[in-house]
């Protein structure tokens, strides 16, 4: 019983079916081998189409597809796409600074979009170091060393006071 349980745990219906079909192949005649091989291909193709169509049905959204491109990108990027455009328009050339860590993709995305401005990531409570500008995504920051110079759709740009 323990052995059967272990085999079932490791193999499941997938590997047991593979072993069964392989063994069957060697027990049948040539014509039946062809039918078996073709049958497996038909079953695999039908199954692949079925689960793909299921997955596609969940992801196929014409209303999202027909949205303006900027809106689609902003929806995915939590508005960091338009915020990056805004920052690139107002930051002086060569401006560098720090970017408070919000969550991985949003932070990395904004870092990427701001290049060649270089904004290194900063954890809460850590010193600003050489940063002249500090960006906070999605929430304001309160710090006596920070002077708010711009806010855009709940994203904030500060200047570090010496």
């Amino acid at each position: 019983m323990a052995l059967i349980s272990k085999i079932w745990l490791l193999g499941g219906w997938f590997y047991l079916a593979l072993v069964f079909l392989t063994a069957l192949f060697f027990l049948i005649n040539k014509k039946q081998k062809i039918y078996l091989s073709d049958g497996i291909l038909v079953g695999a193709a039908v199954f692949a189409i079925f689960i793909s169509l299921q997955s596609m049905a969940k992801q196929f959204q014409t209303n999202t597809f027909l949205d303006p491109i900027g809106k689609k990108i902003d929806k995915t990027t939590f508005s960091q796409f338009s915020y990056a455009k805004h920052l690139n328009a107002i930051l002086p050339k060569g401006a560098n600074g720090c970017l408070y860590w919000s969550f991985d993709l949003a932070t990395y995305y904004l870092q990427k979009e701001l290049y060649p401005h270089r904004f290194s990531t900063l954890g809460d409570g850590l010193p600003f170091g050489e940063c002249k500008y500090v960006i906070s995504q999605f929430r304001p920051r309160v710090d006596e060393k920070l002077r708010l110079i711009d806010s855009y759709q709940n994203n904030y740009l500060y200047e570090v006071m010496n």
Partner: protein
Amino acid sequence: MWAWDLLISLLAIVSFFQMGLLVDYYLLNHRRLHFNLAVFLGLGLGFCAILQMLLAVLAVPISDFAVRGFTAVLFLPYIFDSNFRRQAAGFLRSLGKSRKVGIIVPVLVLLAFISVILVITFSHPVWGYDGIQRWLLKARLFWADGIITKANLALVQPADDPNLWPLSGTWFYHLLGRSDDFWIQFIPVTVLVCLAADFWRIVKTSGKVSWLWTAILLFCPFLWQTASSEAYSGNADLLVSFYLFLAFSRLFNKQFVYAAIFLGLGALTKNDALPALAGFCVLLPIFYRGGKFNLSKLALAVAAAFLIFNVSWKLYFGMNSRYLQTDWSVIFRQRPIFGYTKYTLQGFREQFRQIDRWGVGFLVIGFFVLTRIRRIFNDRRLLFVGVLFGAQLLGYIWVYYVTSEDQATQIATSLFRLVSQIFPSLLIFAYTLSVTNVEGLKLKDGKK
């Protein structure tokens, strides 16, 4: 505005095809046009990347204007090379003549599939961890700076990642005039379509079952999601899968030079493909010594050249290797190699039966490999490819052994992407076994 961006994006894709076509025509095929979109795309993306890598070594920056000018020059052969023009026109005429009624329904299904993929893909930009934080970040850095430098390479970790995919993106951005995570998705979608088209071209000689094989590939859930899903469309795994497929499928027709080129380009896409390239260099002289080895000497030279270029380019730019600059004594002391290998193999075993990702594709592969295993040992080409798969698998096992990150976490987050790299190649291997008689390979299609 979106119409203009769409037009430029399509022009970028066409420029990749055109680059590959010219490389194939002038350098590889002695000024004969053998039309194969997948080969042209593979060669074009590779040429584009190698060109930019060489320009980086020479410290020659490029601009949007330079790239657009170069793209225009790509089309001059249609005007100035009468032989080229005649062959291209002849091919287009032959397309117009071939009308097979039986092909209409499958083609309509394929067009519907591509349409659905396009709608899913272009409902979002790239939004995946590796896509944003590694690959497209590099593409933007190289575009913004106009050149690859040690400084901008060092900004992205891991620094020893190859750059074919980012450089394809950089080229795209130069033509578009800005970095864009939305339109760049045309590249992975095009790669997927070309992979499927080349797969079908190889299997179509088998009659109606060819559509079943193609459906198993095309409707493999994770494969089309690597092109259309926001989490994966920015990754490089589909490109590696594409290059490995092109390489292995050429090996069945003894097209060693093409195989060497595509293995080399795969290794320039991700380090994951290095084991196959290294295995090719080591095993080709063993499998094909004597006899027709003269044919494969050139392929060996090409593969070795790619390997040397790959490594020396990384050394030149000071890209430290995660795997070579490791204290092996610590690893061997702290990590039981058999335990780690067993865990990795269990991971593969579990992954193959993830039917929500692979359908029952691995059941099909396993069935044809196990029931025709004798043919592998009777045919040198099949055995050679089989051993290369083994080298690739050993490479994956090795990576999971030496990785500095926790093995279980690495396997959980990355193993399915590694499996996607070899799925199309394994499927074509299984197909080849199914059409091989016991004595040896018997393929009707002798073209690339």
